[in-house]
């Protein structure tokens, strides 16, 4: 089909940014425009290629059967019982994130078009390396390979923040790097333990994710006192890595700092893709391989998700820096995703998985736009901005679009994900937990709905202050006190001479529209026809959460047995039946339903 096999196609997609990085390096001597043009060309080629591969996947029989696609495997360290392979492939779980990485990489290149003039070669080379790493993470089918790519996403971003960032860039870069690394080392130890456990039962030291999933299903890690709670320990180790990456409150403090200091292109990749790797890790490893521990931790993580929603929203409400505000809104949105995932309810999990993409699009768009505002007015302080709608109408329209997506306006993508997450969470709270947990679960679900109100509040209030009004004229000639820091990095001398004419207008340039238009298209597309976006991952999601869902139901049953027997509780207390109704399996209830 089409001349070359899907596996080759996939390899090519991942290799293209690497080749592009070399090309950009070689062209380095020819100056800025040559470098950025070659980087953009690379990103476009990768995107077209990746998009084509995604389309091929969607039409393939493997997609229909829920099997991995474009699988290639080369021996790496193979000998005796040892079996490490360079194996790549895509499946329902990774396909959209893979596509999103390619899409946002182009956005990242284009938003840096005018912003990055210092050391452009290094910048674009690192950006392309980051793209390759992001594509690789989602295509890896081997633990070692996954971990290599996972760590490899850190390195380019570390330099991107540390060299091209703002005032506090060094601190931000180091904090980001150390924090994430510390977590991921623990996660790696956890993964190695799974490998060893599997090896001790099968006799083969395989690092293949599919085999490990099957192996842990056949021989689950012990989840009892006798077994040393090994499954829980491993779960916590993985949690350390993924929770920092997501980030789940309270492991989030690196995020606002990293975002505020990162160059726009870095922020786009960070918010759009890198945060998703944490959730992807949960879905790929924790849930299928450690179902019992997941079930035990699920109520706590569900709660942490809700805390994240409210906490992120509240902190966002009082931010004075626009970029920081968006960063905290990310914390809030990732809270929704965590909540949906650990509701362990099919509808909520599907919603959470879609919300990964939705947040990737809207947060990346918002960060990109904040970067564009910064380039024009040299400030991100909400108090110093105002009335942008008159000066840059298209910038305003796009900002509003992504804002509406972020606050879950129907017709745009955010609504679908949010609604499904809430529906599934309520389903879990009403009908899927033990009686003692029902009230806490309901309180948590209701609190999550409060996030809907807060979300509209902080976003629209920010829009009002930044874009509306007419009385404020943001300083446009670099007259603010902040500028000494940027002058050294070339932010200050450019920008407004290319943006804006004599009439005070400073609307989007062609490359900025090109950076954002694809995101806007997908925001609308997913919002209007979510079904084709929800369908491909559905089978994989069901398979990967089945173990945890069953374990959770089992756990709730045990809790129920510990509670007073239903007979004694049956004495009619008519006024408050809700407080003492034990749980039933959701599936039982759905069976009853027409």
């Amino acid at each position, binding site marked *: 089909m089409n001349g070359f096999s899907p596996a080759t196609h996939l390899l090519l997609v991942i290799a293209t940014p690497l080749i592009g990085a070399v090309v950009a390096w070689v062209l380095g001597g020819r100056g800025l425009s040559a470098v950025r043009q070659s980087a953009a060309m690379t990103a476009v080629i990768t995107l077209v290629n990746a998009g084509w591969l995604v389309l091929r996947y969607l039409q393939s029989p493997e997609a229909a059967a829920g099997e991995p696609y474009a699988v290639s495997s080369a021996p790496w360290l193979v000998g005796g019982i040892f079996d490490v392979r360079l194996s790549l492939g895509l499946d329902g779980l990774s396909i959209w994130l893979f596509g999103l990485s390619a899409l946002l990489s182009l956005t990242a290149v284009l938003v840096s078009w005018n912003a990055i003039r210092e050391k452009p070669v290094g910048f674009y080379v690192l950006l392309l390396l980051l793209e390759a790493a992001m594509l690789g993470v989602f295509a890896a089918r081997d633990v070692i390979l996954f971990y290599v790519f996972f760590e490899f996403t850190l390195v380019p971003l570390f330099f991107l923040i540390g060299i091209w960032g703002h005032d506090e860039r060094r601190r931000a870069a180091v904090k980001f790097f150390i924090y994430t690394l510390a977590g991921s080392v623990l996660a790696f130890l956890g993964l190695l333990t799974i490998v*060893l456990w599997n090896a001790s039962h099968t006799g083969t030291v395989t690092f293949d994710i599919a085999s490990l999933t099957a192996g842990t299903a056949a021989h689950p890690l012990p989840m009892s006192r006798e077994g040393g709670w090994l499954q829980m320990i491993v779960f916590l180790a993985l949690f350390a890595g993924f929770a920092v990456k997501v980030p789940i409150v309270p492991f989030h*403090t690196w995020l606002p700092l990293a975002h505020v200091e990162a160059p726009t292109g870095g922020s786009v990749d960070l918010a759009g893709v890198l945060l998703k790797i944490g959730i992807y890790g949960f879905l790929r490893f924790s849930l299928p391989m450690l179902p019992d521990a997941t079930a035990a931790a699920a109520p706590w993580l569900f709660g942490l998700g809700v805390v994240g929603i409210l906490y992120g929203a509240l902190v966002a409400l009082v931010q004075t820096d626009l970029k920081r505000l968006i960063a905290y809104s990310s914390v809030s949105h990732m809270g929704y995703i965590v909540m949906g995932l650990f509701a362990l309810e099919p509808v909520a999990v599907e919603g959470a998985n879609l919300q990964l993409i939705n947040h990737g699009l809207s947060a990346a768009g918002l960060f990109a736009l904040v970067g564009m505002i910064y380039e024009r007015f040299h400030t991100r302080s909400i108090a110093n901005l105002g009335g942008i709608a008159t000066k840059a109408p298209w910038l305003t329209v796009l900002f509003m679009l992504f804002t509406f997506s972020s606050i879950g306006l129907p017709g745009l993508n955010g609504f679908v994900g949010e609604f499904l997450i809430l529906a599934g969470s309520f389903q879990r709270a*009403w009908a899927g937990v033990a009686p003692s947990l029902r009230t806490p679960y309901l309180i948590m*679900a209701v609190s999550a709905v409060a996030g809907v109100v807060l979300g509209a509040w902080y976003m629209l209030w920010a829009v009002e202050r930044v874009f509306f*009004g*007419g009385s404020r004229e943001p300083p446009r000639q670099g007259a603010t006190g902040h500028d000494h820091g940027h002058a050294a990095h070339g932010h200050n001398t450019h920008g407004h001479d290319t943006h804006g004419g004599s009439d005070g207008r400073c609307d989007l340039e062609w490359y900025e529209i090109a950076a954002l238009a694809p995101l806007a298209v997908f925001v609308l597309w997913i919002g209007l026809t979510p079904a084709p976006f929800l369908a491909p991952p559905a089978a994989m999601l069901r398979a990967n959460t089945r173990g945890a869902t069953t374990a959770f139901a089992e756990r709730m049953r045990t809790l129920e047995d510990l509670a007073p027997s239903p007979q004694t509780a049956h004495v009619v207390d*008519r006024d408050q039946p809700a407080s003492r109704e034990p749980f039933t399996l959701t599936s039982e209830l759905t069976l*009853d339903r027409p």
Partner: protein
Amino acid sequence: MDLASQLPMLLGLAWLAPLVSFVAILFFGPRMGHHGKNAAWVATAAIVTSLGLSLAAFGIWLTAHPVTAVSHDSHGAAVDGHAADSHDANEHESHGNEANADHGDHADHSGQHAAVVPAAYSGDWYTLYQGGSLRLSIGWYIDALTVMMFVVVTFIATCIHVYASGYMHDELHDVTDHEVHLSDGGHLHRPGRFPRFFQALSLFCFSMLGILIAGNLAMVFIFWELVGICSWFLIGFYFERKSASTAANKAFIVNRVGDFGMLIGLMALWGALGTLHFADSPAAGAGGQTAPGLFSLVRPAESGHALQVPDGMVKFANASGVSQIALDNASRPGDGANEIASRIRDWRSEGYGRWLLFIAGVGIFCGCVGKSAQFPLFVWLPDAMEGPTPVSALVHSATMVAAGVYLVGRFYPVLTPDVLLVIAVIGGITLFIAATIALVANDIKRVLAYSTVSQLGYMMLALGVGGWSAGLFHLVTHAFFKSLLFLCSGSVIHACHTNDMRKMGGLARVMPWTAGTMLVGCLAIIGAGIPFVIGLSGYYSKDAILAQALSYSQANPSWSILFYAVAGGAFLTAFYMFRLWFMTFAGAPRDHHIADHAHESPNVMVVPLVALSVLAIVAGWTLPGGFGLANLLEQARPAGTAATMSDSFLFGNLTVPAEHLSHEGAIHVTATLTAFTTAAAGVLLAAMMYLWRIISPEMVASVFRPIYSFLANRWYFDELYNAIFVRPVFAVASLASGTDRGVIDRLIDGIAWSARQLAGFDAWIDRNLVDGLVNATATATWNAGLELKKLQTGRLRQYVMFIVIGTVALFVLASMLFRAALAG
């Protein structure tokens, strides 16, 4: 004639026409003529198309379901057979007169009523999401109410489009906004935004019609939010003004607070019942089967459409019982299911699931509280007058705020007497508070805004006391006269360039058309008429509400306050409306500068006024033969709601009397006379204070100074909410933000710092101890290396062997440790 496929097609197209206009103006607006002048034509053409299609649907409906007088046995005839074959459409057949067992003393009378199933057509166009039992779809539910509301909304929207194309002409060239002060002291100059206005107007009409046609609650919610965002655009149209953008945000966020409750109601319904469709719909996957919708779940045909807690909710609430039986019959699931089914009746009588139904009803009503600006969420509506006046007329009289009342009416069969009482009480509080504030407001648009809030309270109260048709009847008549009043006020503002009534007066001479049509509007809203003979539209609808409230008060004496609220509200309404009219049009001009420059508005603005005032007069009339709004509404009356409903749950014994009882002699006469007397007294008092000047308003204000300032400050609601909601939220948010930097982040930094200290210590050890050791070891190794040199054979095979042995040894070691750990 195939009604089942024609109606959705006609109304569907009527619904989509404004969307087409929105998209067209969005992309080509600025290029539509000079400054986008023709955008008005595009938008108007679209809404006229909608009106035409709605009228066509209305005509088709009338031929199939002729409207006849409501004699109590003609219902069956009104919904005669239309055995249309429907492929994807689903039709509810009338089941004739089924017996209705309960409802004690009125059983003989209400039996025929309760059994009537309204003619309704439903189906789905498009499925947004399908997973498990959750189906989010775009579909339709069309009955007489839908058709009627389509005509009303598109008609009023058409008038407003025409009017706005004149009113908004300032936006056709560069605008200097005198309300915006720039930092350099000047005013803001900006290009006109004529097309943008009509773009938002079109999207708004599309969203509103989407709510009307919606076939399920999820779709209602979708368009509910879209209406919210359109109002955000329209209220914030002059976004350079801080007051406008703040008002827009306030409207949206306050509405979101209502949506908070609505979402919870939605989740309760879906979680327990597995459907959000109003009507029965084809079941997923299975061929030919139908899944019951909300209406038939809550009011099943088998029990004569009497309200009962649906099976799903009973099972849901008694999950322990269900799982116990399931466990007992684990081997024979069929028996278990049978036993559960047989026990449901007992469980229901034990009261399981009633809370759930109550929460669902109140939750959905919360959304309506937001949209229809009821207490305690009404604070957004008066601020929303920051939008251009045509927007106020459309958004805040006839459509957006109507959506809440419409949804209560649509969702009516699911509401229990307790929920209805909540609705009635909220409506009563709203109508009273808003009316008192309107007494002292001096901004002409704000008077109308508070009067809108108050009238919406009337509608809610009417629905709550069992007046389904009274409430919706008033919704329609109010839509006509309130949009008329708003457009009249717009005409006045257009002429005077001020909203302040204290600067007006004597305008009747210069703008006779506006004064005349506004007088019609005022008379209509106070329900003027000759008792028992004829009246303006408001006369009929207000009478119906009073009568039903009286009937309810008699049935539930402890809640007779509701009747007094309605009667008192009628007095206040008459007073503040005529205060407005007298202050604006009567007497001598107070500000000659304004009066001299005032002029009658252009024809494009006057014609809609005349059209609307005609409807404000005749909309309530019933023609000989029975054709009229009230009888048309009866066609859509939800099955089972014509009967008296009694229940005793949260608020004690409640009886919601059947609506037809209020048409009977004593109640009707009392209500009509009360309405007439209170309204007349209100007008008289207004005339004494503002026309004849017998009583000085200033004196009254100074005598009742504390009350006056309390009302003039709008009961301090904004201040109160600021103190109990906004500030605490900000305090908590600042605390969270402080914690974020001061505690969590510092903790992380502290850990990092300790790690560094440890590393420093480690480095010291490294230099002084380890290094020494290593140096010693190195010497030893060197020597050992010399020995091992002998192993260096240079043969690859041997090397590989060493590596393999080494790796295996490591792994054996690791696994042994690992097993030991497990065993330990």
